[in-house]
């Protein structure tokens, strides 16, 4: 219950606490996941680095952290891919009618795309975890010459759950990247790999000294992916993962996203394994 604060009676002043965006388009990616294209109502441009996230607000419903999933070079149409799991995510994807979506951000750090120039990169994604990695893929493909080999492993529960199907097809057919896709359970039409994402590692051979890995997906998937990467000889300083914790402010003030000594919102969401190996995968940390 809310108790009235004395400030409530104080004078109120109009301000910008969040920017307002309109929903331009909604794509249905999977039965429960949608990509939204948002346009700034204030017509100012918007920039971010791959891996960052926004706090998105659905009027009267709530605010949640959602990664940017679009092209970092696109300044006026920003993309978010949202899986509907509860009230706020539901309101966001059904928000075609309302006047605006509130947006605060971008928050957080990004994937180490500068530092990895000249190196091989492997991206491993599970389910909705592909969303924050897509901007990184766009970036690498756009600056393809500046990177070494580029691997992409992606797994989803079923063929139906794969995001960005058109792009997946394109990525698979490119010669300048090695893309592997798998599903936990196939259907009649599925002719690709079946099995969890870590089973894809048998298809590739990494150069441990020259490869950086970017990983995002459910915590358990990341845990096993990290083991595979270590198996292939990658050291923890070369493995980056994107963490998820409860977030209420995105600004390091509410304290909820703490993970060991880090605030996921301001020190993350992306961490190198050597930063967090003490805590990662431990129960209830």
């Amino acid at each position: 219950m809310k108790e009235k604060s004395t400030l409530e009676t104080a004078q109120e002043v109009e301000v910008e606490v969040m920017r307002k965006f309109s929903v331009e388009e909604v794509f249905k990616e999977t039965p429960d996941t949608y990509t939204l294209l948002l346009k700034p109502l204030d017509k100012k441009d918007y920039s971010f680095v791959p891996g960052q996230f926004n706090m998105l607000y659905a009027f009267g419903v709530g605010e949640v952290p959602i990664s940017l999933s679009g092209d970092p070079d696109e300044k006026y149409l920003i993309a978010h891919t949202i899986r509907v799991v509860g009230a706020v995510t539901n309101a966001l994807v059904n928000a075609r009618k309302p006047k605006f979506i509130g947006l605060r951000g971008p928050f957080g750090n990004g994937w180490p795309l500068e530092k990895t120039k000249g190196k091989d990169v492997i991206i491993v994604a599970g389910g909705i975890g592909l969303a924050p990695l897509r901007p990184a893929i766009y970036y690498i493909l756009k600056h393809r010459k500046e990177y070494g080999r580029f691997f992409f492993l992606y797994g989803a529960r079923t063929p139906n759950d794969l995001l960005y199907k058109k792009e997946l097809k394109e990525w698979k057919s490119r010669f300048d990247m090695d893309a592997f896709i798998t599903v936990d359970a196939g259907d009649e039409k599925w002719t690709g790999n079946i099995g969890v994402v870590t089973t894809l590692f048998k298809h590739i051979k990494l150069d441990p000294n020259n490869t950086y890995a970017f990983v995002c997906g459910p915590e358990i998937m990341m845990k096993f992916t990290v083991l595979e990467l270590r198996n292939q000889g990658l050291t923890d300083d070369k493995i980056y993962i994107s963490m998820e914790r409860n977030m209420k402010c995105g600004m390091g003030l509410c304290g909820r996203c703490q993970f060991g000594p880090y605030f996921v919102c301001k020190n993350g969401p992306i961490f190198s394994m050597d930063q967090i190996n003490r805590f990662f995968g431990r129960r209830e940390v």
Partner: protein
Amino acid sequence: MVGKIPKIAVYKFASCDGCQLSIVDLEDELLEINQKFEIAYFMEVTRAAKRGPYDVGLVEGSISTPHAIELIKSIRKDCKTLVAIGACATAGGIQALRNWANVEEFSKYVYAKPEYIQTLEKSSPISEYVQVDFELRGCPVNKYQLLEVLSAFLAGRKPNIPTYSLCIECKRKGNVCVTVAKSVPCLGPVVQAGCGALCPAYSRGCYGCFGPMESPNVKSLASKFIELGMDKKDVILNFRGFTGWSKEFREVDVLIEG
């Protein structure tokens, strides 16, 4: 909610009427509630009764008669969203004290004309018989929380109803802890917030209107009460109040005896 005005129905089972009265006690909002919802069935305030189905059903009271079991099942079918309101509907209420009465001893007592009365052996929460979409605690419910549930329903969001301990609310309010400062036994550490920490504000211990909090450590608190000098029997009585029949409080006797 889009488009049409949602229909609301309010039902009553064994109860004191206090929880449904909380709606009428929202004096400032009552007429607005009547605009935002179509009050389709609410016997306490209107003779007019519209047929279901209803979008929301608010159910007060516990199930304690054979007839009530039939009724709640048909109510469940009629209501898209079913909200149990109050300690009676969510924990069996104070009348659930009879649930501990020994059946044999019970029948030995001859009351005036027992054959006239139909009653079940136990007074049970609604969720014992049908699936409930949301439980709003309290004896009575906090009317502002009730308003919050209705507002959240209209907005399609999760109601902001915390499930943590009363202590959190108590401290926010600036109350002085009665247990620590006066050795008054208070159920606050195992009881869900929601009332606004009224009892401690009135210098007395919480007696549990809002039922168990999300992860109550009943045993530890019971030991504390014993340490404060209460005898075991009174500790059991203390937990066996308005929400005594809730799962977490029900077996306090077993926890105490170890």
